[in-house]
């Protein structure tokens, strides 16, 4: 005996024969899996082969494994056979077809059959069997790789057919066999026998220690070398409690009524067990990495259980559901708390099994197919993982994390690479990385939403946990850095990036909500993996932070989606129209989740995305950063579509009930968590930074600077955001709601004024203007919005938007600046723009939103690049570090940010006609966007170029990025934009469309001034900044007044209403002449100074462009005046009246401001002079009447006085003349049968000859849609 074992030849041949037999028999079983009897027999044969192979290895481990395997497999197959005979006799056949669905008739027997079959794979709900790992270990230990792989491959085959058999037999509901179709009593003793054996089998698995010891002892008696690895260590209490408790609960529930004292037994018990488990995690005393993941698992599991209490009410198979939910939590917690790889593997298998049962909970054919895919892929992946683990043990002799971490530096690269690869395959399957992602988009939609949530949110994260653990905590990035291991590590960014892009594109194409969310999960996990693969401390931090955030937000999304789908009865996104409003609380949670996952502040996803992009830049992988940002951009597209469908489409179904309370508790808890992590990103960072510190201290990961994500929330910015509650509180009353909003802005104004000193002058002035204009527009809206709907929503979002804008003004560092920028220009803006919910508004809002996000993405890249290169996000620190930045980092960073600002300021001549149309927004908002919000672009440019010192930086550069290239480029873009946009405005007949183009054109003057960068030009830019704010808001409000009264949106529909609306006409004329720049109104001084500034720099062409723009400005405003106010009055407007005082007063205030600022430009110029002096420019000599000396000097007050004198002179001359007046008919050459319409020269006809001519020259087809678009 002893001789035989020690004979190498025997050993080799036994192992080889055994493994070949095993593989062959499994293959045969697979091919003949429709005949169940044959399958059981072949499978048993195969496992005998495994035993033989184990025996052949001749090591203690192999022998123990072999013996145990024989025991387990015999029991399992015997049980299966008995149960099968019982079933087969009942159904009259042993064919799979005949037995499919018998589970519904013979549930116990079929369950025993299934249990035994799965147990033969080494998987039971009680515990896995160690016999197969031990056998395999024997082979690996003796270096018999090929047989080991053969056995693994055979096991994969077995997994395949076992699932193919068990799932239909036990769970199928597509084809069911009713109890009366089954003959009972043909073999009465088989079932009890099988049950008894199953009990033995369960006991063998649940309490294997005695048997294992016994067999091991026997094996060691043979004197074989080696020893049995400690595959299992005692379970942590946090895992045992839900696990054992789950079984006890289900048993107890059988004997208890459904509810005890009003509390549902199962649900309450589960929640208590879950909470206990969560609490116990913190007593486990494990590494920070384990603790973090275990805490996430525990927290989310608790949320899932609370949610399920409401969601699963009324679903069938409650006991099974709750049991496996608790088992899943137990195995997840145990997996994360494990201190050795053996336990980790054991829990891994348990996790797969328990979650797979949950996935197929509904037992539909689709669910079974998806469940099969899930179980098979993850199970097969797990075998790869097992292989990796065993290889590692063979190299180190231990499974213990601490021992492995210590031994890692001395390991051979081959072992590391093999282990790494094996583990990576296992983890990648679970994480759903391309190309082993197939199960993920299948399993999510079919599982109950309460399971899809954790499936996405935390189960995929076990893959991330595994990768972090094995690659970094055990091996360390230093060990992984060279040779073969480095190639394994490099797989992470590669697979992650591929997954990210593939999944985002796939998600965009989905019509099923849950499928879309599933693909989105893939994408998020992909980016986490990609970043993780960079292996720096920052990368790990970023990845971990996103793990936390994604766990929270994706569960939130699935929970919400589940309820919406439940109530709507469909998962098609298009069929969920308006559901967010039909179920407002659920909808709100969905909204929070969607915003979070789009990476928009103030929700969690933003900060972690920021960290991840930083990590990419920091590690010198800008391409990866671009991929993440690009993927995010795609993500934004489909999530905003979801937001649109849920909230801004009409709901047409019957009234639906709001979600059950427990669901709401779970969802709001998650939403709150996401909000907190978004408002204080530092809090999220505090959760994950212990992990990184631990890794760094252990020398496993390179240290790197983790950026400070502390956000300063100035209270004047928080005030309006919180104040959004006021209009909501008064939601039933438009007036109170509007006045409440105005009051909030009033208080905000005080707050801004009181924080004098905490901001520089420029920011303070900007903030004050932001609030003032906001207050005017809200007063106006009180009247304007009375024809609209849900006004409170409009006011609330308006306030949040203003809050964001104020935050932008008050931010001392780039990170907070960008955070507020995102708040201001993304979702709040979108929600306000699409307020009217017309198809046009939704379409334009979507485009505008995307355009803004695109600009913000550019900025994102730039901000991260600069901040990472400078090591800080503080504006001044970045400014001083600019010069010493490596390579083109400074220039590219600044360029990207400048591009972002320029896009905000609409300075992109390319196709602005497509993007820049929030024309469909409510007019007070259009006005606000045009006059105030878009100014954040020039404001940002000022900060970038002059506060951060970009101007000096660009001037000092040489080479390709020399010049002030960016500045002069910007100036040229601005100059061209002025003329192009003005020409476009001239072509328009849409009331607001024309004004929007006008805004673009006028912003060109501002950007041109700033980009020219001399005292005079910058002052001119800033003065126009203020002037434009006043007159463009005025013009928009006047246009709004016309729309409010006439409901027209095009000049074509108007004629001669000036006499009916004299105040509107007067203020519009003042605004228009200000914009044209007729002295002494306010647009003149700024343009005047700008021309002088440009000419002083010798920028003649730019000066001509900007002056030419003025002529065009005059032309389009005269067209507006003629088309709307003058011309032949139309009888339709006979009953038209002037708008009410609430709209008149803000307009008159603005008109007054135009005149006052025009006559006394010093009012604005003096503070501006202070600002530019503070920025290091030579101040101008400025008086109240205007610039007093040098180029651009003029006396506005005196010229205004002279104009007045000339006016009086004209009046005087007229007074000397005959003052009688008589009304006559208009002269029409005697033709009196023409209608009013025929006598009116419409707005679009006004410049027809010129337009026709230009069109001919440029060979533009008349059908080109740029001419006279509506809106």
């Amino acid at each position, binding site marked *: 005996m002893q001789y035989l074992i020690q004979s190498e030849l025997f050993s080799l041949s036994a192992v080889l024969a055994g493994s070949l037999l095993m593989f062959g028999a499994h293959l045969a079983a697979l091919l003949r899996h429709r005949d169940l009897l044959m399958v059981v027999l072949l499978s048993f044969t195969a496992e005998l082969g495994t035993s033989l192979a184990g025996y052949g290895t001749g090591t203690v481990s192999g022998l123990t494994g072999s013996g145990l395997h024989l025991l387990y497999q015999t029991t399992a197959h015997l049980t299966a056979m008995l149960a099968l005979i019982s079933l087969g006799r009942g159904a009259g056949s042993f064919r799979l077809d005949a037995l499919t669905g018998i589970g519904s008739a013979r549930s116990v027997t079929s369950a025993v059959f299934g249990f035994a079959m799965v147990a033969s794979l080494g998987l039971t709900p009680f515990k896995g069997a160690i016999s197969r790992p031990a056998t395999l270990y024997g082979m690996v230990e003796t270096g018999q790789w090929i047989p080991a792989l053969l056995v693994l491959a055979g096991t994969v085959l077995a997994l395949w057919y076992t699932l193919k058999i068990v799932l239909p037999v036990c769970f199928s509901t597509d084809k069911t066999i009713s109890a009366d179709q089954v003959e009972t009593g043909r073999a009465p003793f088989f079932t009890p026998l099988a049950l008894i054996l199953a009990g033995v089998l369960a006991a063998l698995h649940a309490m294997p220690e005695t048997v294992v010891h016994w067999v091991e002892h026997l094996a060691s008696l043979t004197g074989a070398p080696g020893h049995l690895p400690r595959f299992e260590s005692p379970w942590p209490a946090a895992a045992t409690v839900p696990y054992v408790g789950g079984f006890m609960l289900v048993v107890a529930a059988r004997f208890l009524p459904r509810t005890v004292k009003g509390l549902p037994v199962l649900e309450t018990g589960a929640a208590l067990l879950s909470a206990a488990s969560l609490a116990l995690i913190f007593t486990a005393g494990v590494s920070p990495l384990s603790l973090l993941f275990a805490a996430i698992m525990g927290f989310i599991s608790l949320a899932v259980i609370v949610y399920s209490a409401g969601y699963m009410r009324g679903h069938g198979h409650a006991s099974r559901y709750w049991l496996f939910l608790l088992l899943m939590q137990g195995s997840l917690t145990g997996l994360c708390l494990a201190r050795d790889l053996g336990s980790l593997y054991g829990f891994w298998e348990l996790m797969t099994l328990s979650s797979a049962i949950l996935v197929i909970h509904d037992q539909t054919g689709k669910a079974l197919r998806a469940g099969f895919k899930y179980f098979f892929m993850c199970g097969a992946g797990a075998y790869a993982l097992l292989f990796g683990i065993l290889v590692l043990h063979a190299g180190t002799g231990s499974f213990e994390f601490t021992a492995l971490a210590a031994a890692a530096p001395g390991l051979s690269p081959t072992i590391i690479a093999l282990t790494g690869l094996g583990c990576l395959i296992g983890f990648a399957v679970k994480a759903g990385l391309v190309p082993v992602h197939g199960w993920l988009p299948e399993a999510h939609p079919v599982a109950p939403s309460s399971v899809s949530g954790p499936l996405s949110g935390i189960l995929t994260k076990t893959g991330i946990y595994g990768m972090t653990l094995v690659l970094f905590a055990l091996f360390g990035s230093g060990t992984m850095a060279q040779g073969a291991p480095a190639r394994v590590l490099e797989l992470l960014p590669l697979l992650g990036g591929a997954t990210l892009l593939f999944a985002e594109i796939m998600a965009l194409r989905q019509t099923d909500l849950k499928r879309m969310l599933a693909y989105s999960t893939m994408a998020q996990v992909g980016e986490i993996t990609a970043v993780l693969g960079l292996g720096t401390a920052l990368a790990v931090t970023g990845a971990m932070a996103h793990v936390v955030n994604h766990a929270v937000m994706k569960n939130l999304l699935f929970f919400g989606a589940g309820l919406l789908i439940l109530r709507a009865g469909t998962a098609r996104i298009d069929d969920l129209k308006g559901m967010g409003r039909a179920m407002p609380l659920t909808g709100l949670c969905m909204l929070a989740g969607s915003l979070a996952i789009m990476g928009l502040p103030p929700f969690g996803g933003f900060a972690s995305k920021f960290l991840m992009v930083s990590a990419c830049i920091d590690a010198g992988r800008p391409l990866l950063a671009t991929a993440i940002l690009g993927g995010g951009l795609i993500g934004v597209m489909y999530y905003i579509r979801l937001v649109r469908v849920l909230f801004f489409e009409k709901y047409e179904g019957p009234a639906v009930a709001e979600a059950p309370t427990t669901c709401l508790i779970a969802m709001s808890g998650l939403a709150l968590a996401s909000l907190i992590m978004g408002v204080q990103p530092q809090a999220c960072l505090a959760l994950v930074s212990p992990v990184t510190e631990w890794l760094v201290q252990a020398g496993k990961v390179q240290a790197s600077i983790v950026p400070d994500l502390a956000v300063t929330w100035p209270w004047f910015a928080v005030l309006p955001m919180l104040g959004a509650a006021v209009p909501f509180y008064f939601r039933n009353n438009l007036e109170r709601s509007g006045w409440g909003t105005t009051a909030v802005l009033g208080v905000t104004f005080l707050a801004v004024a009181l924080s004098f000193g905490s901001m520089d002058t420029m920011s303070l002035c900007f903030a004050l203007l932001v609030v003032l204009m906001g207050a005017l527009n809200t007063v106006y809206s009180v009247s304007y919005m009375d024809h609209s709907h849900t006004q409170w929503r409009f006011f609330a979002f308006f306030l949040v938007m203003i809050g964001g804008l104020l935050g932008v003004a008050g931010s001392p560092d780039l990170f907070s600046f960008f955070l507020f920028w995102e708040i201001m220009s993304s979702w709040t803006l979108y929600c306000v723009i699409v307020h009217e919910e017309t198809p046009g508004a939704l379409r334009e809002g979507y485009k505008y939103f995307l355009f803004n996000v695109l600009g913000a993405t550019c900025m994102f890249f730039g901000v991260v690049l600069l901040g990472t290169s400078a090591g800080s996000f503080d504006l001044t620190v970045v400014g001083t570090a600019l010069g010493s930045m490596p390579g083109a980092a400074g220039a590219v960073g600044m360029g990207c940010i400048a591009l972002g600002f320029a896009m905000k300021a609409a300075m992109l001549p390319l196709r602005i006609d497509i993007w820049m149309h929030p024309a469909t927004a409510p007019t007070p908002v259009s006005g606000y966007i045009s006059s105030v919000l878009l100014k954040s672009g020039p404001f940002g440019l000022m900060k970038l170029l002059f506060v951060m010192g970009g101007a000096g930086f660009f001037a000092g550069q040489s080479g390709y990025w020399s010049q002030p290239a960016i500045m002069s480029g910007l100036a040229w873009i601005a100059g061209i934009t002025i003329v192009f946009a003005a020409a476009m405005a001239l072509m328009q007949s849409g009331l607001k469309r024309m004004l929007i183009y006008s805004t673009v054109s006028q912003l060109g003057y501002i950007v041109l001034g700033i980009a020219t960068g001399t005292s005079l030009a910058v002052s001119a830019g800033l003065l126009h900044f203020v002037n434009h704010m006043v007159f463009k808001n005025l013009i928009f409000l006047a246009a709004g007044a016309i729309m409010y009264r006439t409901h027209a949106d095009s000049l074509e529909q108007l004629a001669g209403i000036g006499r009916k609306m004299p105040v509107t006409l007067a203020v519009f004329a003042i605004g228009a002449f200000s914009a044209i720049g007729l002295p002494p109104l306010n647009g003149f001084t700024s343009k005047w100074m700008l021309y002088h500034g440009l000419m002083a720099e010798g920028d003649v062409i730019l000066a001509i462009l900007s002056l030419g723009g003025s002529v065009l400005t005059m032309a389009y405003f005269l067209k507006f005046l003629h088309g709307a106010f003058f011309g032949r009055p139309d009888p339709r407007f006979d009953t038209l009246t002037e708008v009410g005082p609430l709209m008149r007063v803000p307009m008159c205030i603005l008109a007054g401001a135009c005149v006052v600022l025009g006559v006394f430009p010093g009012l604005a110029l003096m503070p501006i002079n202070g600002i530019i002096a503070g920025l290091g420019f030579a101040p101008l000599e400025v008086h109240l009447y205007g610039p007093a000396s040098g180029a651009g000097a003029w006396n506005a007050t005196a010229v205004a006085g002279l104009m007045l004198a*000339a006016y009086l002179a004209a009046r005087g001359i007229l007074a000397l003349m005959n003052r009688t007046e008589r009304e*006559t008919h208009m002269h029409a050459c005697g033709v009196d049968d023409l209608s009013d319409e025929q006598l009116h020269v419409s707005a679009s006809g006004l410049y027809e*000859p010129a337009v026709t001519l230009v069109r001919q020259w440029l060979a533009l087809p008349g059908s080109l849609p740029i001419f006279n678009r509506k809106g």
Partner: protein
Amino acid sequence: MSETLSYIFHLLIFPGGLFALLFGLLLKGIDRKVFARLQRRIGPPLLQPLFDVIKLGRKETLIPATAHKGMFRFAPVLGFMGAMVAAMFIPVPGVWDGAPGLGDMLMLLYLLPIPAVALILAGSSSSSPFGALGASREMILMFAYEIPLLVVLLTVALRVGYATGGVEFSLARVVEYQLAHGSFLLDPVMLPAFASYLLFNYGTKGSVPFDLAEAETEILEGPLLEYSGPSLAMFQLMFALKMVVVTGLGVVLFFPGTLGTNPVVNLAWFCCKATGLMLVAVTLLRASTGRLRTDQTFRFYLKYPTGLAYAGLGLTWILG
């Protein structure tokens, strides 16, 4: 205080106000007389334009019932006001420096269009389709001639500025420079600019062949069709002022030379030159051509005056 009073004097009496009005009306008279002679007619008396204004002032005002009355009444006043302030900024070499402390030639660029804007508003508010057509044509014409004017002004500013190292927008300095260095009329570099300015003159004054906006035979004087009595008189006065501004600006920009230091002589010399410029730039062409169509005019202006102006600018830029 005295400065304020002096400005008011310059605005109301000289060179704006009274002087400009009378001189403008006289110019109009000369124009009509010479025009008639060229057509072998006797023509009206030189002071006929003045008599016309007085006569109009004594008639009643007719306002169409459908007009926007406020704007209909305000338009002539607005135009008059703009032209009057503009006239004050024209220096009379050796007599008046054009109030350089208040503003410069860019100011004229903004004041000069005010009369045109007034005409547009007048046509638009009169509710007459002829008025609207006239307004439309006036605007198109403005596209056509504003850019050449702008470029010509920049050319002069650059030319003067090169001597002092920069650009010079002050008309007073333009005069000074030419008094020291000779008139731009004799400077070959400036010839394209001068030609362009001449063409601008035709356009801005709306005389044949570019009188699209009024075009009596087509649209019955367009914006002016519904005007009568004092309102029409105001427009006539506005035209008179504008004539002085445009011809005076031409003189200042291209041949502001003086005769000695006697202000009276210089004033007379200025008037002679302005008259001469008007005869060349308005009367001769008006008498010898017919009206062009709108598109022809537009095309003409976008080609020739604009092209010439840019050529002048380029020349100055290169040779300056």
